[in-house]
């Protein structure tokens, strides 16, 4: 359901529409000798028994929403986005005024905090923050979780056909060493930061390097692999790994865990030289209506029993230590879902880059995907 449909919602009166219209018009306000676009901050008031979420696909299901409704009487309506940038663009364009909870990833939390888009969370109204794993209690992207609550995390790595690839791959370089045999059997994520970042990592640089020459070297290295790459995709690899059309695919651990459940001949690898670690969080945007409902949702999701159940059902990794303890042993021991600390040490969190570095990433990414 999109917010455009919201305006036909019977709860919305004409007054709200006019208010939204006025706010949208002010977004085109004159400023100096030019005008600015997309700084619209519209709140669409929603009734207190309805809560709009803007989230990734696969983080909520009917059971979770029903459980919340049974406890609080609040009806949850979840819209999904497919990238952080899409979510931010929609909010900036003034089309996200009904959302009380959004699910930005770590680097997007940093960015949105710097753009002053996220509410400072009132810690007195949150229960169970101390039950998170220590490294999620004070994460690098958001000191002391002031603006965001971690809800899921994972790594970026490779899923591969463990029957065909013997001995099993251990690091990014496997792709380069075997590019002849793997020709057109490799897919990489459709994401410049991740793909160039993996090449940077295999060259010994950081994912977040600001050294443009290092980015160029990573691009050079990727061009050597280019002829062996079937496609850049963040989702279409799933069916092709299962059917055997692809032998190895770069992916997020949460997606890999789901595919491995369906297709036992596949395995997930967190590369030895390190990878990126991501955290998806929940936050309240500045424009949020129904703040009460938003805190109710955050507290609900912070509860270990809720977190454990939903993580097991939808196969993602919980950042909640107590919830982890409630999981069945075979889930706890799933290295793809919960990699050992030693493997995580070499992995990094993606950070927002200065504009000129971001542009270099973008330029080489365009080159790589068009050449």
């Amino acid at each position, binding site marked *: 359901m999109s917010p455009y449909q919201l305006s036909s919602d019977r709860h919305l009166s004409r007054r709200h529409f006019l208010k939204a219209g006025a706010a949208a018009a002010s977004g085109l306000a004159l400023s100096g000798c030019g005008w600015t*676009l997309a700084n619209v901050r519209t709140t669409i008031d929603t009734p207190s028994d309805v809560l709009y979420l803007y989230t990734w696909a696969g983080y909520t299901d009917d059971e979770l929403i029903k459980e919340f409704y049974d406890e609080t009487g609040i009806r949850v309506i979840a819209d999904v986005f497919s990238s952080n940038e899409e979510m931010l*663009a929609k909010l900036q364009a003034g089309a996200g005024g009904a959302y009380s909870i959004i699910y930005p990833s770590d680097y997007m939390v940093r960015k949105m905090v710097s753009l002053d888009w996220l509410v400072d969370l009132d810690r007195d109204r949150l229960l169970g923050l101390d039950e998170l794993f220590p490294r999620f209690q004070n994460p690098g992207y958001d000191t002391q979780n002031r603006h965001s609550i971690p809800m899921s995390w994972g790594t970026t790595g490779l899923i591969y056909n463990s029957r065909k690839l013997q001995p099993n791959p251990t690091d990014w370089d496997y792709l380069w060493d075997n590019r002849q045999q793997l020709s057109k059997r490799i897919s990489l994520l459709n994401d410049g930061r991740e793909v160039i970042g993996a090449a940077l990592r295999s060259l010994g640089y950081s994912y977040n390097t600001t050294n443009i020459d290092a980015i160029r070297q990573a691009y050079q290295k990727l061009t050597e692999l280019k002829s062996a790459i079937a496609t850049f995709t963040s989702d279409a690899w799933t069916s092709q790994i299962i059917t055997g059309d692809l032998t190895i695919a770069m992916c997020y651990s949460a997606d890999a865990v789901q595919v491995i459940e369906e297709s036992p001949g596949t395995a997930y690898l967190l590369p030895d030289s390190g990878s990126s670690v991501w955290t998806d969080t929940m936050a309240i945007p500045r424009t949020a209506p129904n703040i009460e409902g938003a805190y109710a949702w955050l507290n609900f999701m912070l509860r270990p029993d809720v977190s454990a159940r939903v993580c097991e059902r939808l196969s993602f990794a919980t950042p909640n230590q107590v919830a982890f303890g409630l999981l069945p042993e075979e889930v706890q021991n799933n290295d793809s879902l919960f990699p050992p600390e030693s493997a995580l040490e070499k992995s990094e969190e993606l950070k927002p880059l200065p504009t000129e570095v971001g542009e270099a990433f973008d330029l080489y990414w365009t080159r790589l995907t068009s050449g």
Partner: protein
Amino acid sequence: MSITTNPPPEPPKLKPQTEASKKPFGSRWLGQLVLLGPAGIWLLLLLVVPTLVILELSLVADIRPGDVVNPDGFANYLRAFAPLNLTVIGRSISFALGTTIGCLILGFPVAYWIALQAPKKWRNLLLLGFILPLWTSSLLRSYAWITILRRTGVLNSIIGIIGIPPLELMNEPPAVLIGMTYSFLPYMVLILYASLEKLDRRLLEASADLGATPPETFLRVTVPQVFPGIAAGGLLVFITSLGDFINPELLGGASSMTVARLIYNQFLGQTPNWGFGSALSTLLILLVSIAIALLLKYGDRDAKV
């Protein structure tokens, strides 16, 4: 049919005209305003103004959401003509051209058969059958092509039975052309059908009478008559496929960046640059406008012959 070829003009038809011309200019103007106003405002607010905004944004270098819009030059256009971006634009144009040719080659015989040879009572049903795929999502249709074209897919399983080695179509340009041709074929068939249906068959008979072979009749009598239809169908397919996003993205593989995707990246990618995205959009609008201008010029001239 124009009025002049009609037998004596019927009074009821002319009456409203004479009445209208008697009315004072003001009320006629008001009537036109009432009729055209809503659509005019719609066009002005939702087409003209946004296009002008795109045009203005395209003149600002490195603008990002929230920045102040101060047009300052043509840097974005210069960037669009960098070799890298020209490759991308060129790929889009060649995909669109390939799709147009593919649709014409596949669509013409079908439209010819439906319009001239199929039993009359079947025509509407046959046309409906052609439009039917348009009722499903284009995303779904692209996904269906993945199932068919991939290495262990339907196509390769079938040709494997007769001993042909598997084709590597998926993730290569041929897959994009197949997907796009499939997507836009109905438009071509519909327009060619409309054009072929009006074909003057007496001319075909005359041509045969005067000793032309069937290929000669086809090339020198049929094709010139339906040329406006070919031009209109070709341009419609060219224009829509130029902006296609889904087929290159899903079927094209690792080297499938097109203008549509590049524009998308400037707005929803990791390093948004609205100015550059707007410049690319303006160029795309220009390309399409040129195509439409060609249609108006050549489509019309031949229609009058």
